[in-house]
Protein backbone atom coordinates (compact mmCIF):
# COMPACT_ATOMS: atom_id res chain seq x y z
CA UNK A 1 0.00 0.00 0.00
CA UNK A 2 1.22 3.51 -0.75
CA UNK A 3 1.09 6.13 1.99
CA UNK A 4 -1.80 7.76 0.23
CA UNK A 5 -3.79 4.53 0.17
CA UNK A 6 -3.01 3.91 3.83
CA UNK A 7 -4.19 7.40 4.71
CA UNK A 8 -7.44 6.86 2.85
CA UNK A 9 -7.90 3.53 4.62
CA UNK A 10 -7.33 5.21 7.99
CA UNK A 11 -9.81 7.95 7.13
CA UNK A 12 -12.39 5.31 6.25
CA UNK A 13 -11.87 3.60 9.61
CA UNK A 14 -12.09 7.01 11.22
CA UNK A 15 -15.46 7.74 9.64
CA UNK A 16 -16.81 4.51 11.07
CA UNK A 17 -15.28 4.91 14.53
CA UNK A 18 -15.34 8.67 15.19
CA UNK A 19 -18.97 9.01 16.36
CA UNK A 20 -18.70 6.11 18.82
CA UNK A 21 -15.31 7.36 19.99
CA UNK A 22 -16.43 10.94 20.61
CA UNK A 23 -19.65 9.70 22.25
CA UNK A 24 -17.85 7.45 24.75
CA UNK A 25 -15.20 10.08 25.48
CA UNK A 26 -17.85 12.75 26.00
CA UNK A 27 -19.43 10.55 28.68
CA UNK A 28 -16.03 10.25 30.41
CA UNK A 29 -14.82 13.84 30.22
CA UNK A 30 -18.29 15.45 30.13
CA UNK A 31 -17.37 17.93 27.43
CA UNK A 32 -18.10 17.46 23.74
CA UNK A 33 -15.35 19.81 22.57
CA UNK A 34 -12.73 18.13 24.69
CA UNK A 35 -13.95 14.69 23.67
CA UNK A 36 -13.53 15.62 20.03
CA UNK A 37 -10.02 16.99 20.63
CA UNK A 38 -9.02 13.73 22.31
CA UNK A 39 -10.49 11.74 19.45
CA UNK A 40 -8.58 13.89 16.96
CA UNK A 41 -5.38 13.26 18.91
CA UNK A 42 -6.03 9.54 18.60
CA UNK A 43 -6.50 9.97 14.86
CA UNK A 44 -3.17 11.81 14.59
CA UNK A 45 -1.51 8.98 16.51
CA UNK A 46 -3.07 6.45 14.13
CA UNK A 47 -1.87 8.40 11.10
CA UNK A 48 1.67 8.33 12.52
CA UNK A 49 1.68 4.73 13.60
CA UNK A 50 -0.53 2.64 11.33
CA UNK A 51 1.27 3.30 8.03
CA UNK A 52 4.28 1.27 9.23
CA UNK A 53 2.83 -0.83 12.07
CA UNK A 54 -0.29 -1.77 10.09
CA UNK A 55 -3.96 -1.18 10.94
CA UNK A 56 -4.66 -3.00 14.24
CA UNK A 57 -7.05 -5.92 14.43
CA UNK A 58 -9.62 -3.87 16.33
CA UNK A 59 -9.04 -0.28 15.23
CA UNK A 60 -11.94 1.09 17.30
CA UNK A 61 -10.54 -0.28 20.55
CA UNK A 62 -7.06 0.99 19.65
CA UNK A 63 -8.34 4.52 19.02
CA UNK A 64 -10.37 4.47 22.24
CA UNK A 65 -7.45 3.26 24.37
CA UNK A 66 -5.16 5.87 22.82
CA UNK A 67 -7.62 8.69 23.45
CA UNK A 68 -8.16 7.62 27.07
CA UNK A 69 -4.43 7.44 27.75
CA UNK A 70 -4.06 10.88 26.27
CA UNK A 71 -6.79 12.23 28.58
CA UNK A 72 -5.10 10.76 31.66
CA UNK A 73 -1.73 12.17 30.54
CA UNK A 74 -3.16 15.65 30.11
CA UNK A 75 -4.83 15.54 33.52
CA UNK A 76 -1.71 14.32 35.29
CA UNK A 77 0.54 16.87 33.67
CA UNK A 78 -1.57 19.72 35.00
CA UNK A 79 -2.08 21.21 31.56
CA UNK A 80 -4.53 23.87 30.54
CA UNK A 81 -7.02 21.08 30.05
CA UNK A 82 -6.52 19.91 33.63
CA UNK A 83 -6.97 23.41 35.02
CA UNK A 84 -10.04 23.91 32.92
CA UNK A 85 -11.47 20.78 34.46
CA UNK A 86 -10.22 21.34 37.95
CA UNK A 87 -13.68 21.04 39.39
CA UNK A 88 -13.81 17.48 38.15
CA UNK A 89 -10.24 16.95 39.27
CA UNK A 90 -9.28 13.73 40.97
CA UNK A 91 -12.63 12.13 40.44
CA UNK A 92 -12.18 12.38 36.70
CA UNK A 93 -8.65 11.00 36.80
CA UNK A 94 -9.86 8.00 38.77
CA UNK A 95 -12.76 7.46 36.46
CA UNK A 96 -10.55 7.69 33.40
CA UNK A 97 -7.93 5.39 34.89
CA UNK A 98 -10.58 2.76 35.46
CA UNK A 99 -11.95 3.39 32.00
CA UNK A 100 -8.54 2.90 30.38
CA UNK A 101 -8.52 -0.66 31.60
CA UNK A 102 -12.12 -1.32 30.72
CA UNK A 103 -12.70 -3.19 27.53
CA UNK A 104 -16.05 -1.50 27.17
CA UNK A 105 -17.56 -1.02 23.78
CA UNK A 106 -19.29 2.33 23.72
CA UNK A 107 -22.96 1.73 24.34
CA UNK A 108 -25.80 2.97 22.19
CA UNK A 109 -26.80 5.38 24.94
CA UNK A 110 -23.54 7.27 24.45
CA UNK A 111 -24.34 7.86 20.79
CA UNK A 112 -27.89 8.85 21.64
CA UNK A 113 -26.64 11.34 24.22
CA UNK A 114 -24.17 12.75 21.70
CA UNK A 115 -26.74 13.26 18.94
CA UNK A 116 -29.21 14.81 21.40
CA UNK A 117 -26.51 17.22 22.56
CA UNK A 118 -25.42 18.08 19.02
CA UNK A 119 -29.06 19.03 18.34
CA UNK A 120 -29.54 20.77 21.69
CA UNK A 121 -32.01 23.69 21.77
CA UNK A 122 -29.38 26.07 23.23
CA UNK A 123 -27.71 25.95 19.80
CA UNK A 124 -28.86 27.75 16.67
CA UNK A 125 -30.20 25.55 13.88
CA UNK A 126 -27.09 26.22 11.78
CA UNK A 127 -24.88 25.15 14.68
CA UNK A 128 -26.93 21.99 15.25
CA UNK A 129 -26.57 21.01 11.61
CA UNK A 130 -22.81 21.64 11.51
CA UNK A 131 -22.15 19.87 14.79
CA UNK A 132 -24.30 16.86 13.89
CA UNK A 133 -22.59 16.40 10.53
CA UNK A 134 -19.19 16.82 12.11
CA UNK A 135 -19.67 14.61 15.19
CA UNK A 136 -22.17 12.02 13.96
CA UNK A 137 -21.79 12.13 10.19
CA UNK A 138 -18.00 12.02 10.25
CA UNK A 139 -17.74 14.93 7.78
CA UNK A 140 -14.78 17.27 7.88
CA UNK A 141 -15.23 21.01 8.31
CA UNK A 142 -14.23 21.48 4.65
CA UNK A 143 -16.82 18.95 3.47
CA UNK A 144 -19.58 20.64 5.45
CA UNK A 145 -18.52 24.03 4.12
CA UNK A 146 -18.57 22.84 0.52
CA UNK A 147 -21.96 21.21 0.96
CA UNK A 148 -23.50 24.37 2.40
CA UNK A 149 -21.66 26.72 0.03
CA UNK A 150 -20.02 28.76 2.79
CA UNK A 151 -16.32 29.35 3.57
CA UNK A 152 -14.64 26.65 5.67
CA UNK A 153 -13.66 29.28 8.25
CA UNK A 154 -17.35 30.03 8.83
CA UNK A 155 -18.14 26.39 9.59
CA UNK A 156 -15.03 26.00 11.76
CA UNK A 157 -16.06 29.04 13.76
CA UNK A 158 -19.64 27.81 14.00
CA UNK A 159 -18.45 24.50 15.43
CA UNK A 160 -16.05 26.12 17.90
CA UNK A 161 -18.80 28.45 19.11
CA UNK A 162 -21.29 25.60 19.39
CA UNK A 163 -18.91 23.59 21.54
CA UNK A 164 -18.25 26.63 23.73
CA UNK A 165 -21.98 27.27 24.09
CA UNK A 166 -22.51 23.68 25.20
CA UNK A 167 -19.66 23.96 27.71
CA UNK A 168 -20.90 27.25 29.12
CA UNK A 169 -24.51 26.10 29.32
CA UNK A 170 -23.26 23.03 31.21
CA UNK A 171 -25.59 20.85 29.22
CA UNK A 172 -25.99 17.70 31.30
CA UNK A 173 -24.99 14.37 29.82
CA UNK A 174 -27.94 12.50 31.29
CA UNK A 175 -30.68 11.41 28.94
CA UNK A 176 -33.79 13.55 29.35
CA UNK A 177 -37.03 11.74 30.15
CA UNK A 178 -40.67 11.90 29.13
CA UNK A 179 -41.82 15.04 27.33
CA UNK A 180 -38.34 16.55 27.51
CA UNK A 181 -36.96 13.55 25.61
CA UNK A 182 -39.74 13.82 23.01
CA UNK A 183 -38.87 17.46 22.36
CA UNK A 184 -35.19 16.62 21.98
CA UNK A 185 -35.97 13.75 19.60
CA UNK A 186 -38.08 16.13 17.53
CA UNK A 187 -35.09 18.47 17.28
CA UNK A 188 -32.84 15.66 15.99
CA UNK A 189 -35.42 14.64 13.38
CA UNK A 190 -35.71 18.26 12.27
CA UNK A 191 -31.94 18.61 11.85
CA UNK A 192 -31.65 15.37 9.88
CA UNK A 193 -34.51 16.31 7.56
CA UNK A 194 -33.04 19.75 7.07
CA UNK A 195 -29.75 18.20 5.93
CA UNK A 196 -31.67 15.92 3.60
CA UNK A 197 -33.60 18.79 2.05
CA UNK A 198 -30.45 20.83 1.62
CA UNK A 199 -29.13 18.01 -0.55
CA UNK A 200 -32.47 17.29 -2.21
CA UNK A 201 -33.08 20.83 -3.42
CA UNK A 202 -29.52 20.86 -4.74
CA UNK A 203 -30.01 17.85 -6.99
CA UNK A 204 -30.49 20.17 -9.95
CA UNK A 205 -26.91 21.31 -9.57
CA UNK A 206 -23.97 19.18 -10.57
CA UNK A 207 -22.19 19.63 -7.25
CA UNK A 208 -22.00 16.11 -5.86
CA UNK A 209 -20.92 17.36 -2.43
CA UNK A 210 -24.34 18.88 -2.00
CA UNK A 211 -26.31 15.92 -3.25
CA UNK A 212 -24.20 13.66 -1.03
CA UNK A 213 -25.96 15.39 1.86
CA UNK A 214 -29.00 13.25 1.05
CA UNK A 215 -26.95 10.12 1.65
CA UNK A 216 -25.45 11.61 4.82
CA UNK A 217 -28.93 12.43 6.11
CA UNK A 218 -30.25 8.98 5.23
CA UNK A 219 -27.39 7.35 7.06
CA UNK A 220 -27.91 9.58 10.11
CA UNK A 221 -31.62 8.85 9.97
CA UNK A 222 -31.06 5.09 9.89
CA UNK A 223 -28.56 5.37 12.75
CA UNK A 224 -30.94 7.46 14.83
CA UNK A 225 -33.91 5.14 14.19
CA UNK A 226 -31.84 2.28 15.63
CA UNK A 227 -30.98 4.43 18.68
CA UNK A 228 -34.66 5.11 19.39
CA UNK A 229 -36.27 2.00 17.88
CA UNK A 230 -39.58 2.53 19.71
CA UNK A 231 -40.02 6.01 18.22
CA UNK A 232 -42.46 5.80 15.26
CA UNK A 233 -41.53 9.23 13.91
CA UNK A 234 -37.85 8.24 13.59
CA UNK A 235 -38.86 5.36 11.32
CA UNK A 236 -41.35 7.67 9.62
CA UNK A 237 -38.55 10.08 8.75
CA UNK A 238 -36.39 7.24 7.40
CA UNK A 239 -39.33 6.09 5.26
CA UNK A 240 -39.89 9.62 3.98
CA UNK A 241 -36.22 10.09 3.06
CA UNK A 242 -35.77 6.63 1.49
CA UNK A 243 -38.78 7.14 -0.76
CA UNK A 244 -37.88 10.71 -1.68
CA UNK A 245 -34.31 9.62 -2.42
CA UNK A 246 -35.68 6.88 -4.68
CA UNK A 247 -36.82 9.58 -7.12
CA UNK A 248 -33.52 11.42 -7.21
CA UNK A 249 -32.57 10.36 -10.73
CA UNK A 250 -36.01 11.03 -12.16
CA UNK A 251 -36.36 14.56 -10.83
CA UNK A 252 -34.01 16.13 -13.33
CA UNK A 253 -34.54 16.16 -17.09
CA UNK A 254 -31.82 15.69 -19.71
CA UNK A 255 -31.00 19.41 -19.83
CA UNK A 256 -31.07 19.84 -16.07
CA UNK A 257 -34.65 21.04 -15.76
CA UNK A 258 -36.73 19.91 -12.78
CA UNK A 259 -39.33 17.26 -13.66
CA UNK A 260 -42.59 17.32 -11.68
CA UNK A 261 -43.64 14.20 -9.81
CA UNK A 262 -46.49 13.27 -12.16
CA UNK A 263 -44.29 13.75 -15.23
CA UNK A 264 -41.38 11.69 -13.93
CA UNK A 265 -40.22 8.55 -15.69
CA UNK A 266 -41.11 6.09 -12.95
CA UNK A 267 -38.80 3.46 -14.41
CA UNK A 268 -35.99 5.63 -13.09
CA UNK A 269 -37.19 5.39 -9.51
CA UNK A 270 -34.92 3.30 -7.31
CA UNK A 271 -36.94 0.23 -6.35
CA UNK A 272 -34.57 -0.87 -3.57
CA UNK A 273 -35.00 2.45 -1.76
CA UNK A 274 -38.76 2.29 -2.27
CA UNK A 275 -38.91 -1.20 -0.73
CA UNK A 276 -36.79 -0.01 2.18
CA UNK A 277 -38.97 3.07 2.62
CA UNK A 278 -42.18 1.05 2.62
CA UNK A 279 -40.61 -1.36 5.14
CA UNK A 280 -39.61 1.53 7.43
CA UNK A 281 -43.14 2.92 7.21
CA UNK A 282 -44.59 -0.49 8.08
CA UNK A 283 -42.24 -0.64 11.07
CA UNK A 284 -43.40 2.79 12.25
CA UNK A 285 -47.01 1.76 11.75
CA UNK A 286 -46.52 -1.47 13.71
CA UNK A 287 -45.47 0.55 16.77
CA UNK A 288 -49.06 1.77 16.95
CA UNK A 289 -50.35 5.15 17.96
CA UNK A 290 -51.39 8.18 15.95
CA UNK A 291 -49.42 9.21 12.88
CA UNK A 292 -47.02 12.13 13.43
CA UNK A 293 -46.00 14.61 10.72
CA UNK A 294 -43.13 12.50 9.34
CA UNK A 295 -45.21 9.34 9.16
CA UNK A 296 -48.00 11.25 7.41
CA UNK A 297 -45.57 12.68 4.85
CA UNK A 298 -44.03 9.23 4.42
CA UNK A 299 -47.50 7.75 3.89
CA UNK A 300 -48.14 10.39 1.19
CA UNK A 301 -44.93 9.69 -0.71
CA UNK A 302 -45.62 5.96 -0.28
CA UNK A 303 -48.93 6.40 -2.18
CA UNK A 304 -46.98 7.80 -5.11
CA UNK A 305 -44.28 5.14 -4.82
CA UNK A 306 -46.87 2.35 -4.98
CA UNK A 307 -48.46 3.67 -8.18
CA UNK A 308 -46.82 2.17 -11.25
CA UNK A 309 -48.52 4.78 -13.43
CA UNK A 310 -49.56 8.28 -12.32
CA UNK A 311 -53.22 7.48 -12.99
CA UNK A 312 -53.07 4.63 -10.47
CA UNK A 313 -52.32 7.06 -7.63
CA UNK A 314 -54.66 6.75 -4.65
CA UNK A 315 -55.61 10.46 -4.52
CA UNK A 316 -58.46 9.90 -2.07
CA UNK A 317 -56.01 8.57 0.47
CA UNK A 318 -53.50 11.33 -0.26
CA UNK A 319 -56.20 13.97 0.24
CA UNK A 320 -57.10 12.41 3.60
CA UNK A 321 -53.42 12.28 4.63
CA UNK A 322 -52.92 15.96 3.75
CA UNK A 323 -56.04 16.73 5.74
CA UNK A 324 -54.53 14.98 8.79
CA UNK A 325 -51.16 16.68 8.21
CA UNK A 326 -52.84 20.09 7.99
CA UNK A 327 -54.53 19.49 11.32
CA UNK A 328 -51.24 18.53 13.01
CA UNK A 329 -49.06 21.17 11.38
CA UNK A 330 -51.32 23.78 9.78
CA UNK A 331 -49.60 25.54 6.90
CA UNK A 332 -50.73 27.20 3.65
CA UNK A 333 -48.31 25.01 1.68
CA UNK A 334 -49.88 21.83 3.09
CA UNK A 335 -53.28 23.29 2.25
CA UNK A 336 -52.15 23.98 -1.31
CA UNK A 337 -51.00 20.38 -1.64
CA UNK A 338 -54.32 19.21 -0.22
CA UNK A 339 -56.10 21.28 -2.86
CA UNK A 340 -54.17 19.46 -5.59
CA UNK A 341 -55.00 16.05 -4.06
CA UNK A 342 -58.67 16.98 -3.65
CA UNK A 343 -58.80 18.13 -7.27
CA UNK A 344 -57.40 14.80 -8.41
CA UNK A 345 -59.65 12.80 -6.08
CA UNK A 346 -62.95 14.69 -6.17
CA UNK A 347 -62.75 17.03 -9.14
CA UNK A 348 -61.66 20.62 -9.86
CA UNK A 349 -64.64 22.33 -8.22
CA UNK A 350 -63.77 20.86 -4.81
CA UNK A 351 -60.12 21.79 -5.31
CA UNK A 352 -60.93 25.34 -6.34
CA UNK A 353 -62.99 25.84 -3.17
CA UNK A 354 -59.85 25.19 -1.11
CA UNK A 355 -57.63 27.33 -3.35
CA UNK A 356 -60.00 30.26 -3.03
CA UNK A 357 -59.48 30.27 0.75
CA UNK A 358 -55.72 30.66 0.10
CA UNK A 359 -55.83 33.59 -2.31
CA UNK A 360 -55.43 36.21 0.45
CA UNK A 361 -52.91 34.15 2.40
CA UNK A 362 -49.92 36.48 2.97
CA UNK A 363 -47.48 33.54 3.30
CA UNK A 364 -48.31 32.56 -0.30
CA UNK A 365 -48.34 36.08 -1.73
CA UNK A 366 -45.04 35.55 -3.55
CA UNK A 367 -45.45 31.81 -4.14
CA UNK A 368 -45.82 31.16 -7.88
CA UNK A 369 -47.24 27.68 -7.34
CA UNK A 370 -50.53 29.08 -6.02
CA UNK A 371 -51.54 30.86 -9.26
CA UNK A 372 -49.98 28.04 -11.26
CA UNK A 373 -52.08 25.37 -9.49
CA UNK A 374 -55.14 27.60 -9.59
CA UNK A 375 -54.63 28.04 -13.33
CA UNK A 376 -54.49 24.26 -13.70
CA UNK A 377 -57.76 23.80 -11.85
CA UNK A 378 -59.47 26.56 -13.84
CA UNK A 379 -58.43 24.88 -17.10
CA UNK A 380 -60.08 21.68 -15.89
CA UNK A 381 -63.23 23.71 -15.24
CA UNK A 382 -63.08 25.18 -18.76
CA UNK A 383 -62.57 28.71 -17.39
CA UNK A 384 -59.72 29.47 -19.80
CA UNK A 385 -59.73 33.24 -19.53
CA UNK A 386 -59.29 33.20 -15.76
CA UNK A 387 -56.72 30.42 -16.13
CA UNK A 388 -54.70 32.55 -18.56
CA UNK A 389 -54.53 35.39 -16.03
CA UNK A 390 -53.32 32.97 -13.35
CA UNK A 391 -50.57 31.52 -15.55
CA UNK A 392 -49.41 35.03 -16.41
CA UNK A 393 -49.30 35.94 -12.75
CA UNK A 394 -47.35 32.76 -11.96
CA UNK A 395 -44.90 33.47 -14.83
CA UNK A 396 -44.21 36.92 -13.43
CA UNK A 397 -43.56 35.46 -9.97
CA UNK A 398 -41.26 32.51 -10.66
CA UNK A 399 -37.51 32.96 -10.49
CA UNK A 400 -36.84 29.97 -12.71
CA UNK A 401 -36.43 30.95 -16.37
CA UNK A 402 -37.44 27.55 -17.76
CA UNK A 403 -40.55 27.52 -15.64
CA UNK A 404 -41.42 31.03 -16.79
CA UNK A 405 -41.28 29.98 -20.44
CA UNK A 406 -43.50 27.01 -19.67
CA UNK A 407 -46.05 29.12 -17.80
CA UNK A 408 -46.17 31.74 -20.56
CA UNK A 409 -46.80 29.00 -23.10
CA UNK A 410 -49.71 27.74 -21.00
CA UNK A 411 -51.11 31.28 -20.80
CA UNK A 412 -50.95 31.56 -24.59
CA UNK A 413 -52.68 28.17 -24.99
CA UNK A 414 -55.46 29.37 -22.68
CA UNK A 415 -55.88 32.60 -24.64
CA UNK A 416 -56.38 30.55 -27.80
CA UNK A 417 -59.08 28.40 -26.21
CA UNK A 418 -60.86 31.18 -24.34
Amino acid at each position, binding site marked *: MTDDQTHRAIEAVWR*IEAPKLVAALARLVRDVGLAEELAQDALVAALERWPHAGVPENPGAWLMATAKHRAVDLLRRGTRFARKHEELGRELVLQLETAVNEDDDPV*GDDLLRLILIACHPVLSTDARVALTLRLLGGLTTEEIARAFLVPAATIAQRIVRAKRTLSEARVPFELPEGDALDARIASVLEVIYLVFNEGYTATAGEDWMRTALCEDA*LRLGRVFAELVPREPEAHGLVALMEIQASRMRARIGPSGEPVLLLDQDR*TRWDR*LLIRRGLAALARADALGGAYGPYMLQAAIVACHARA*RLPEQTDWVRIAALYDALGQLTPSPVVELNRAVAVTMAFGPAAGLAILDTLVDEPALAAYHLLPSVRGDVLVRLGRHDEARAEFERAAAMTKNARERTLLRARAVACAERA
Partner: protein
Amino acid sequence: MRFMMIVKANPESEAGAMPEDAMLDAMGRYNEELTKAGVLLDLAGLQPSSKGVRVQFKGDKRSVIDGPFTESKELIAGYWLIQVKSKEEAVAWALRVPNPHGEGAETNIELRPLFELDDLAPSEAVERMRERLHKFDASRQK
Protein backbone atom coordinates in the same frame (compact mmCIF):
# COMPACT_ATOMS: atom_id res chain seq x y z
CA MET B 1 -21.86 4.41 -3.51
CA ARG B 2 -23.15 0.88 -3.21
CA PHE B 3 -21.04 -2.22 -2.87
CA MET B 4 -21.90 -5.87 -2.84
CA MET B 5 -19.74 -7.79 -0.36
CA ILE B 6 -19.76 -11.30 -1.74
CA VAL B 7 -18.79 -14.24 0.43
CA LYS B 8 -17.22 -16.98 -1.66
CA ALA B 9 -18.05 -20.60 -0.86
CA ASN B 10 -15.63 -23.23 0.43
CA PRO B 11 -15.82 -27.06 0.50
CA GLU B 12 -17.55 -27.10 3.91
CA SER B 13 -20.21 -24.55 3.01
CA GLU B 14 -20.70 -26.42 -0.25
CA ALA B 15 -21.14 -29.66 1.72
CA GLY B 16 -24.06 -27.94 3.47
CA ALA B 17 -22.34 -27.62 6.85
CA MET B 18 -24.41 -25.27 9.00
CA PRO B 19 -22.42 -22.57 10.79
CA GLU B 20 -21.81 -23.13 14.49
CA ASP B 21 -23.82 -21.20 17.07
CA ALA B 22 -20.83 -19.04 17.97
CA MET B 23 -20.46 -18.06 14.31
CA LEU B 24 -24.16 -17.28 14.00
CA ASP B 25 -23.91 -15.04 17.07
CA ALA B 26 -20.84 -13.26 15.73
CA MET B 27 -22.53 -12.77 12.36
CA GLY B 28 -25.67 -11.49 14.05
CA ARG B 29 -23.60 -8.94 15.97
CA TYR B 30 -21.83 -7.90 12.79
CA ASN B 31 -25.11 -7.43 10.91
CA GLU B 32 -26.39 -5.38 13.82
CA GLU B 33 -23.28 -3.21 13.65
CA LEU B 34 -23.89 -2.60 9.93
CA THR B 35 -27.52 -1.73 10.62
CA LYS B 36 -26.68 0.59 13.49
CA ALA B 37 -24.09 2.36 11.36
CA GLY B 38 -26.81 2.97 8.77
CA VAL B 39 -24.90 1.30 5.93
CA LEU B 40 -26.74 -2.02 5.44
CA LEU B 41 -29.21 -2.09 2.54
CA ASP B 42 -29.78 -5.79 2.04
CA LEU B 43 -28.27 -9.21 2.75
CA ALA B 44 -28.81 -12.92 2.11
CA GLY B 45 -27.15 -16.28 2.62
CA LEU B 46 -27.29 -18.81 -0.21
CA GLN B 47 -27.83 -22.55 0.03
CA PRO B 48 -25.07 -24.82 -1.35
CA SER B 49 -24.83 -25.32 -5.09
CA SER B 50 -26.07 -28.93 -4.67
CA LYS B 51 -29.52 -27.34 -4.32
CA GLY B 52 -28.88 -25.15 -7.36
CA VAL B 53 -29.16 -25.49 -11.09
CA ARG B 54 -27.09 -24.04 -13.89
CA VAL B 55 -28.32 -23.18 -17.33
CA GLN B 56 -25.47 -23.36 -19.77
CA PHE B 57 -25.30 -21.56 -23.10
CA LYS B 58 -22.99 -23.16 -25.64
CA GLY B 59 -23.19 -22.33 -29.33
CA ASP B 60 -26.91 -22.30 -30.06
CA LYS B 61 -27.63 -24.96 -27.42
CA ARG B 62 -29.02 -24.44 -23.95
CA SER B 63 -28.70 -27.17 -21.37
CA VAL B 64 -29.72 -27.50 -17.75
CA ILE B 65 -27.10 -28.82 -15.34
CA ASP B 66 -27.97 -29.80 -11.78
CA GLY B 67 -25.62 -28.86 -8.93
CA PRO B 68 -23.35 -29.36 -7.11
CA PHE B 69 -20.68 -27.49 -9.02
CA THR B 70 -17.05 -28.23 -8.38
CA GLU B 71 -15.14 -24.95 -8.40
CA SER B 72 -16.23 -24.04 -4.85
CA LYS B 73 -13.93 -21.02 -4.53
CA GLU B 74 -15.73 -19.34 -7.40
CA LEU B 75 -19.19 -19.99 -6.01
CA ILE B 76 -21.14 -17.55 -3.91
CA ALA B 77 -22.27 -18.37 -0.38
CA GLY B 78 -23.92 -15.07 0.50
CA TYR B 79 -23.77 -11.32 0.20
CA TRP B 80 -24.34 -7.97 1.84
CA LEU B 81 -25.39 -4.86 -0.03
CA ILE B 82 -23.97 -1.75 1.65
CA GLN B 83 -24.04 1.99 1.01
CA VAL B 84 -20.76 3.68 1.89
CA LYS B 85 -18.81 6.86 1.23
CA SER B 86 -15.81 5.26 -0.46
CA LYS B 87 -14.20 2.04 -1.60
CA GLU B 88 -11.93 2.32 1.45
CA GLU B 89 -14.94 2.34 3.73
CA ALA B 90 -16.30 -0.78 2.03
CA VAL B 91 -12.93 -2.45 2.61
CA ALA B 92 -12.95 -1.36 6.26
CA TRP B 93 -16.34 -3.03 6.72
CA ALA B 94 -15.22 -6.20 4.94
CA LEU B 95 -12.17 -6.45 7.21
CA ARG B 96 -14.54 -6.62 10.20
CA VAL B 97 -16.62 -9.53 8.96
CA PRO B 98 -16.28 -12.50 11.30
CA ASN B 99 -14.80 -15.20 9.05
CA PRO B 100 -17.99 -16.77 7.66
CA HIS B 101 -16.35 -20.17 7.28
CA GLY B 102 -14.96 -20.13 10.83
CA GLU B 103 -11.85 -18.40 12.11
CA GLY B 104 -8.74 -19.95 10.57
CA ALA B 105 -10.53 -21.18 7.45
CA GLU B 106 -9.53 -19.70 4.11
CA THR B 107 -12.26 -17.36 2.93
CA ASN B 108 -12.56 -14.79 0.19
CA ILE B 109 -14.86 -11.82 0.35
CA GLU B 110 -15.12 -9.94 -2.89
CA LEU B 111 -16.20 -6.29 -3.01
CA ARG B 112 -17.90 -5.08 -6.15
CA PRO B 113 -19.39 -1.64 -6.76
CA LEU B 114 -22.89 -1.81 -8.19
CA PHE B 115 -23.42 -0.94 -11.80
CA GLU B 116 -26.28 1.52 -11.80
CA LEU B 117 -28.48 1.77 -14.88
CA ASP B 118 -27.35 5.39 -15.12
CA ASP B 119 -23.81 4.21 -15.74
CA LEU B 120 -24.88 2.72 -19.07
CA ALA B 121 -24.83 4.97 -22.10
CA PRO B 122 -28.41 5.98 -22.90
CA SER B 123 -29.95 3.93 -25.68
CA GLU B 124 -33.35 2.63 -26.64
CA ALA B 125 -32.40 -0.82 -25.40
CA VAL B 126 -31.55 0.59 -21.96
CA GLU B 127 -34.88 2.43 -21.93
CA ARG B 128 -36.75 -0.78 -22.81
CA MET B 129 -34.87 -2.67 -20.11
CA ARG B 130 -35.84 -0.04 -17.57
CA GLU B 131 -39.47 -0.27 -18.57
CA ARG B 132 -39.48 -4.06 -18.18
CA LEU B 133 -37.66 -4.01 -14.85
CA HIS B 134 -40.16 -1.45 -13.69
CA LYS B 135 -43.15 -3.60 -14.62
CA PHE B 136 -41.56 -6.55 -12.90
CA ASP B 137 -40.91 -4.59 -9.71
CA ALA B 138 -44.36 -3.09 -9.68
CA SER B 139 -46.00 -6.49 -10.03
CA ARG B 140 -43.79 -7.82 -7.23
CA GLN B 141 -44.93 -5.05 -4.93
CA LYS B 142 -48.60 -5.96 -5.15
